[in-house]
């Protein structure tokens, strides 16, 4: 089975690098090809990297609370660039302040994300979801 390609990055003006390193390691270790665009990544960088590498998924992290503003319009921009069907996952501390996660999740699903993860999610969770969403058999 062909190796699946993920574009991994921390969106917006966010500089949280530790989790990015861990996710890079965990997804690579789980058999994915990881294109890591690092922190301070713009929507354009995500999309360009996805087009260049023919990626299957955008994995968007946001740890600093501005995720709602930074992620808006990402699905629409993907559609404009012809990759409208790409899987989009997002996770982290997505909003400012303590808010009910269910309402946060709904907002991000409405923006066109396929999966939304709360703070403290272990890498095993999105890895399992990726295998399911990409139709990969369990190893």
């Amino acid at each position, binding site marked *: 089975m062909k190796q699946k390609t993920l574009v991994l990055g921390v969106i917006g003006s966010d500089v949280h690098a530790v989790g990015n390193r861990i996710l890079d390691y965990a997804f690579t270790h789980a058999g994915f090809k990881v294109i890591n665009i690092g*922190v*301070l990544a713009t929507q354009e960088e995500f999309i360009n990297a996805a087009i260049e590498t023919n990626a299957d998924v955008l994995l968007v992290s946001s740890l600093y609370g*501005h995720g709602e503003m930074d992620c808006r319009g990402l699905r629409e921009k993907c559609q404009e660039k012809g990759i409208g069907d790409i899987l989009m996952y997002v996770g982290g*501390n997505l909003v400012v302040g303590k808010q009910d996660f269910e309402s946060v999740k709904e907002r991000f699903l409405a923006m066109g994300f396929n999966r939304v993860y709360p703070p403290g999610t272990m890498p095993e969770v999105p890895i399992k979801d990726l295998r399911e969403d990409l139709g990969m058999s369990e190893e």
Partner: protein
Amino acid sequence: MELTVRQMDAEEFQRQRQEVLGQWETGKDVNFEEAVAYHKGLPKSKIFAEKLAEGKEKGITFAQPRAGVALITEHIELLRCLQDEGGADFLPTTIDSYTRQNRYTEAQSGIEESRTIGRSMLNGFPAVNHGVAACRQVAESVQVPVQVRHGTPDARLLAEITIAGGFTDFEGGGISYNIPYSKDVSIESTIKYWQYVDRLIGLYEEQGVKINREPFGPLTGTLVPPAISHAVAVIEGILAVAQGVRSLTLGYGQCGNLIQDVAALHTLPVLAEEYMEKLGYPKAMITTVFHQWMGGFPQDEAKAFGVISWGAATAALGKATKVIVKTPHEALGIPTKEANAAGIRATKQVLSMLKDQTLPMTEELALEEQMILAETRTILDRVLSLGEGDIAVGTVRAFQAGVIDVPFAPSRFNAGKILPARDTTGAVRMLDFGNLPFDETIKDFHRERIAQRGRDEGRDPSFQMVIDDIYAIGKGMLVGRPR
């Protein structure tokens, strides 16, 4: 302008000043002479350096939270809550992430959207957009000194506005606010940006206005060996003093092992004073700040209180001048003001209970201090030799060569070759030294400690240990043991 540790030209400073104050429309409200007069009218109780000096003399550990929201009224309400309900000894104004990247237009949208929606859409206070008068309104609304805390590689305009705005302490530095906070900004350029900030403060000092400077100690906040953050703190201290800064708070982020943390707090001012004297700078007032656990936090509030309290206990036993307080909401993002105040109260309770206690000297503590001193000196001496005596030049070359190397940093100007991991007692050691200029004695010490952990856990030291350590605290552990 060529990079050098020497004091900036007056001419060069004025040339940059024109440019900096023109970066956003609020820059035009900065008037240096008027600001000096304003600061001279402040009572001692509102001046950071004065209160720090008092604490240092009496052996008190002060508590300071982090906090900032988009709008002025709400920000004042937040600070007053932390002062009145939390009992904060010092207050912060944490700057939002757009301002940190000099994206004032986006910060403006954040302000407007926050007004419309009725809750802060920004993770801090956009001080540049709000301007000098608003900053003074904030500082005047509370009874304790207020500091600017941020993470801005180019903080020149922010410094101009907030210092003219009555804040008496400014966090950051050319290394500590670059390497953990940016991806593509060269160290040479951030050192220059911060020389401007330090020179600005030097000019205030020359006019008799005390502004404290606080290099950001914890760096990436994750498994940073003390020698690395100490080397950076000492370098930033020297860069600041060279520009005329006279009052410095050097920082260190809790590693979690009591002995190592106390050793780090003891050695930090020793090293700074030693190198400042060696390089011929005048004696600055040096205090220390201890950051409570900067890594992942448990989501449960009761457990978070446990982590916070242990940080407070370490700060008190190590006699830090100040402790930066976490909140029981830490794992969930930005806290409510009530949770923030609760974190301060838990911290202050422990600080009070332990204020008359210290960790006495032991063989282990002496060894730990000796290792931190030796490691930091090795790095600093190599920096100076790389820079042919100029510590600014040496710093740029040291990062290129991996002689200074910060773990988990986003910057491409950082080598990223060292790999830290905990030993079996939770102290942070090195699994891979990268290009750190350590001799075999130092390396053997680290290797032996890491090997001991490997034996205790029945596995070979590897990156998996590092990952386990990072996730450990969220599961209540310091050392990430195999499952």
